[in-house]
C-alpha cells in the first residue's frame, strides 16, 4: 500500500466497532428489558452482550492502531 492510502485494517476496525456497538446495544436492551419469548436457545448466556463487547473492543483496537494519522507518522 502506498503511504497515503488508508489501511484496509482501518476499514475492518470500523466494521467490527460499529457492528459490535450495535450488537452490544441490542444485548443490553434485552438484558434490561428481558423479552417474554427470547426466541433463541441459551438466551440466559446473553451472547450478544459479550460477543458485541468483544467485537467493539477488537474494532476499536484496529481503528486506533491503523488510524490514518498514526500510520502516516509510522511511515
Amino acid at each position, binding site marked *: *500500500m*502506498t503511504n497515503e*492510502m*488508508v489501511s*484496509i485494517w482501518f*476499514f*475492518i476496525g*470500523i*466494521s*467490527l466497532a*460499529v*457492528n459490535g456497538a*450495535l*450488537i*452490544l*446495544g*441490542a*444485548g443490553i436492551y*434485552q438484558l434490561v428489558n428481558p423479552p417474554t419469548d*427470547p*426466541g*433463541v*436457545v*441459551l*438466551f440466559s*448466556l446473553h*451472547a*450478544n452482550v459479550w*460477543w*458485541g463487547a468483544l*467485537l467493539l473492543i477488537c474494532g476499536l483496537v484496529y481503528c486506533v492502531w491503523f488510524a490514518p494519522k498514526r500510520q502516516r507518522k509510522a511511515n
Partner: protein
Amino acid sequence: MTPFMATYVATRLVRLSPVDIVIVVFYFALVLSIGWYLKSRANTGEDFFMAGREMTAWVAGLSFLSANLGALELMGWAGSAYQYGILATHWYWIGAIPAMLFLALVMMPFYYISKTHSVPGYLKLRFGEPSRALSAVSFAFMTVLMSGVNMFAMAKVMQIVLGWDINFSIWVSSITVAIYVTLGGLRSAIFNEVLQFFLIWAGALLIPILGLYEAGGWAALKLQIAQRASAQYVHLWAGLGSFTTNPMGIHWTGIVFGLGAIISMGYWTTDFLVVQRILAAKDIRSAEMAPIIGAGFKMMVPFIVILPGLLGLAVLPEKLVPESVATITGAHSYNDVLPLMLARYCGPGLLGLGVTALIAGFMSGMAGNVSAFTTVWTYDIYRPLINSGGSDQHYVSMGRWTTVIGVLISVGTAYLVMQFASIMDYVQALFSFFIAPLFGTVVLGMLWKRASGPGGFWGLLCGTLCSVGMWTWVKVDPSALQYVALSPHAKGLAQDMYQALWSFLVCVIVTVAVSYATKPVADEALTGLVYGLTEVPSVGEVPLYQKPLFWASIVTAVFIALNIIFW
C-alpha cells in the same frame, strides 16, 4: 413467477429486527464507500487489473482464501456435514492444504517472476497463443455464467431465509458489486474480500461455541451423533477402506488421488479466480507467504462450517431432508442447517451480523468472478485477438465497461436459471470440465521443459473432451458410473473425483506423446517459465520465522495432526 420458484415462497427461516436491518444496511454503505474511496487509485492497468501489485502477504492471503469462502460454500458444506458427517472436512483439509502449499512453494515463483497478468497469460508465454485462447475463452465464458448461477442461488437463499423478493436480491447485490468493482477494480474486490473474511468469522463463530456448550462438549456430541445417525459420521478416514462403509459412498483412493492430488491442485493452483489474488502480492516473499497464510486459516474453516452441520445432527429437534424431498414436503433441507443454527442461537444484532456475513460472502464471490472475468477478457481475449494497439487508458476503460457487461450477463444468466432450473446443474458441471486438465497442462509446463506448444494445447483439449465425454456418458447411461468411478456402489461425488483423475491422466499422456512427436522449445525461450531453466529468486536474508518454508512446515505438521486426531 415460475412454479419452480413458487415452492420457495411460503417459508422464511428467520425474521430480522430493526437492529439487524441497520447492520445489513451499514455493510452496503461501507462497501460502496470503500469502492468510492479507491476509485482514484485505479487509473492504470496495473492498478485496475492487478491492484498495483502491492498487496501484503496477509491481505493477499486472506483475499485468496475468501475468494473461495462464499456463502453457498458455507451453507452447502454445512449441509454436506449434516448429510455425510465429518467426511465433508476432506474438502477443507486434504482437498485444499497440500494444493495451497504446492502453489506457494513450487508454482508461485513461476507465476510471479513471469509477471503474467493471468493463468491464460502464463499459458501464452509457455505454450503459445492457441493454449491461451482455449483456456481464456473457456474461463471467461464459464466464470461469468457461474457468477449468474451463484447470483440466482443467492437470491433463492435470501428468499428462503429472509423472505426477500428474488428480483430485489439480484438487482441490489449486482448493482452494488458493479459499482464498487467498476470504481476500484481488483483492489476494491480484494478489500471487500478481506472485510468479508472478518464478517464471516465474527458472524459464524458463535454457532460452534454455543452449539458445543449446548451439546455438552465434543465427546458428548460424538455420542449424540452416534445415537441419532451413525458412529461413522465422526471419522475422517476410518470408514474409507470400502465404498460401502461410509455415508458418502467413496473410497480413500478417490479422496487422495481424485480430490487431493487432482481436483484441489487444479482448483487452487490454476483457477484464475483465486490465483489472481496472489499475483497482486507486492514481492516474491509475500506471494509465497499468501497461500500459506490462506492454508493456515483454511484448516480452521471446518470449525465454522462442518461443526455447525454436525451440531445440527445432535441438537436440532427436526430431521432435515434432501432438497428434492424438501421442495415437495415443505420440510427443511440439509442446506438449511446453517441458517437454522444461526436462528437457534443468535438474537437481535447477532442475527443481522450472521445474515450480513452470508450476503458479504455472496457479493464478494460475485465480485471475484467479475474481476477475474474482466482481466481475462481484457488481457487475454480483447488485447491479443481484437485490438492489440490500444493505450493503457483504453484497456482500463475496457475493463470498467467489461465489469458492467459481466454483471449484466450474470444477471441475465440468473434469470435464465430461474426459468430453466436444470441449467444450473449443466453450468456447474461445465465449469468442472476444465479444472483437472488445466492443472495437467500448467504443471507439466512448469516442471518439464520438453513439453512443447502443440503438446500443451492438444493435452488441454483432449483432457477437457475426456471430461465432457465421461460426464455425458454417465448422464445418458447412469450405470456407466460403475466404470468411471470403479465401483457399482459409487455415488455422485465419487464420479467427480474419478472424472478429474482420468481427464488429468489423459491430458498428461497426450501432452507427453505430442511433445515427443514435435519440436522442443529452445531453452532460452523457457527461461523464467520452467523449473531447471529458471533461477528462482530468493526471499532474501530474513529470520527463520519469516521464511515461507518454515510456516509451510508448521501448517503441514498441524494438517497431519488434525487428520490423525479425527481419523
